[in-house]
């Protein structure tokens, strides 16, 4: 009896596969659950109003907050998005609309490669071009490093979403006398906008949590600054510094910083979903 499995055997096999899949999902969820559990339980204890409004206290004093780092994170990610969003979207348009040419596929390959470059390498690169020449760590350099990371993510997302827009939409605009560029910017891009917004916000959430590219660019700063040309503290670097310090109170604050970071990322994701629904609603109510 080769190759014969009784009905009972087949049912057992089927259940076994379902059980395996379920088990895998549980294993995948365990770390996430633990991370969230620890960050929330430890973070909530340390989080208070001071954390958002006060500056870091000198070593040895307890209390204080990370107001400078919260502002710093917002500034550096804001700077990064300011140049990464337009460049990323335009590159995506180029790849999807002018694809087929050799240069477009080269750009696509470059974007994928850049996407895979370890973030520390990007930090070193930006250190070389934006820190060394000026002999100065700066918020601008930090923003540049994060922007360089965002560009390929946004470009690839934009490209993929533009390719999903039916060709008939493009043709409809062309048939009315639109130029190619006009058709893309007035019809195709708006049609893909909900997805692109989601992609941008997710890219934002991802780079907001980066530490490595900021270590040699924005560096860190225990004082409040909004100057673009000064080193600036960010939540990720502060969490890193505080977590490896020998002080109990700093550990406490590191947990609080981690919680704020996770909340920012979560908020971004929720915002993306909300924005997507809102825009889709405009299109199909």
């Amino acid at each position, binding site marked *: 009896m080769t190759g014969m499995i009784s009905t009972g055997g087949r049912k057992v096999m089927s259940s076994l596969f379902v059980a395996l899949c379920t088990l895998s999902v549980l294993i995948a969820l365990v770390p996430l659950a633990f991370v969230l559990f620890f960050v929330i339980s430890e973070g909530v204890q340390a989080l208070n109003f001071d954390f958002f409004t006060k500056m870091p206290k000198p070593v040895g004093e307890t209390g204080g907050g990370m107001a400078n780092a919260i502002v710093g994170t917002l500034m550096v990610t804001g700077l990064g998005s300011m140049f990464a969003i337009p460049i990323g979207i335009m590159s995506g348009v180029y790849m999807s609309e002018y694809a087929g040419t050799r240069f477009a596929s080269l750009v696509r390959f470059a974007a994928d490669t850049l996407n895979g470059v370890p973030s520390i390498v990007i930090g070193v690169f930006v250190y070389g071009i934006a820190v060394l020449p000026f002999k100065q760590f700066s918020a601008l350099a930090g923003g540049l490093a994060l922007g360089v990371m965002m560009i390929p993510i946004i470009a690839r997302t934009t490209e993929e979403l533009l390719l999903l827009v039916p060709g008939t*939409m493009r043709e*409809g605009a*062309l*048939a009315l*006398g*639109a130029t*190619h560029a006009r058709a893309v910017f007035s019809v195709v891009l*708006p049609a893909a906008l909900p997805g692109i917004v989601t992609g941008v916000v997710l890219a934002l959430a991802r780079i907001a949590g980066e530490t490595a590219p900021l270590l040699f660019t924005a560096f860190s700063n225990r004082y409040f600054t909004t100057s673009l040309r000064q080193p600036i503290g960010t939540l990720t670097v502060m969490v890193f510094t505080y977590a490896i310090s020998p002080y109990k109170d700093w550990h406490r604050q590191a947990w609080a910083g981690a919680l704020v970071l996770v909340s920012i990322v979560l908020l971004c994701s929720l915002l993306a979903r909300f924005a997507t629904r809102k825009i889709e609603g405009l*299109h*199909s109510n």
Partner: protein
Amino acid sequence: MLQTAVPLPSPAAVPSLPVAPAPAPDTAAKITASGLDFYYGPRRVLEQITLQMRRNEVTALIGPSGCGKSTFLRTLNRMNDIVPGARVEGSVVLDGRDIYAAAVDVVDLRRRVGMVFQKSNPFPKSIFDNVAYGLRINRMTRSREDLEGRVEASLRSAALWDEVKDRLHTSALALSGGQQQRLCIARALAVEPEVLLMDEPASALDPIATQRIEELIYQLKSRYTIVIVTHNMQQAARVSDVTAFFWLGRLVETGLTTKIFTAPAQKLTEDYITGRFG
């Protein structure tokens, strides 16, 4: 002597009468393809097509799938230009000018030769903005009132105004399939084309919506030159004045619709029309 020569006044001798210059006869050729070959890369999909499409008439292009009728339609507004590897030989003359000549502005050509697609393709914008789109990109309006007036006129021409006048600023995607297709017709009419190309405009619609589109085509032909691709024999017979039968990239037969459907000259045409193949 048969007759005394009554000299006919030579045209130059006649004092100019207060008559408008004689308009071109209504049945004159508006758009003429001559010896048209079309290639996708090395593959020839249209072979020596010669066809006249006349003013104020509906020309129906029929034939089995893949016979080249849609490709032919798309050569008339150079929509195939965007297909990589597409190449045209021969000529398509619109009002005496070859549309494939180097000096021709494709954007202006496409404004003059409008197109309605098989699957309705409203833009994800409001009803109003859909119709206004072509007017805006071609900068055809002087004021907001002008724009609104033209949008309304186009929607009326497409027999859609009464159904949408109270919700002009809601999404076009919420309209029914038939309404969307009439919206696409309104959008095409808004830019004041001279020729209207329709690629199976009713193939995705139910019989009632189809009937409305056909009535619309009938009304529109007094103002436009219409070329329609259809798979539906009855539709071709109902709406068109002239029918052209395509088969394997060739134009097998063309003539008055009444003749094509009652006494085709070619056996192939008869076989197709009677449903023996295709």
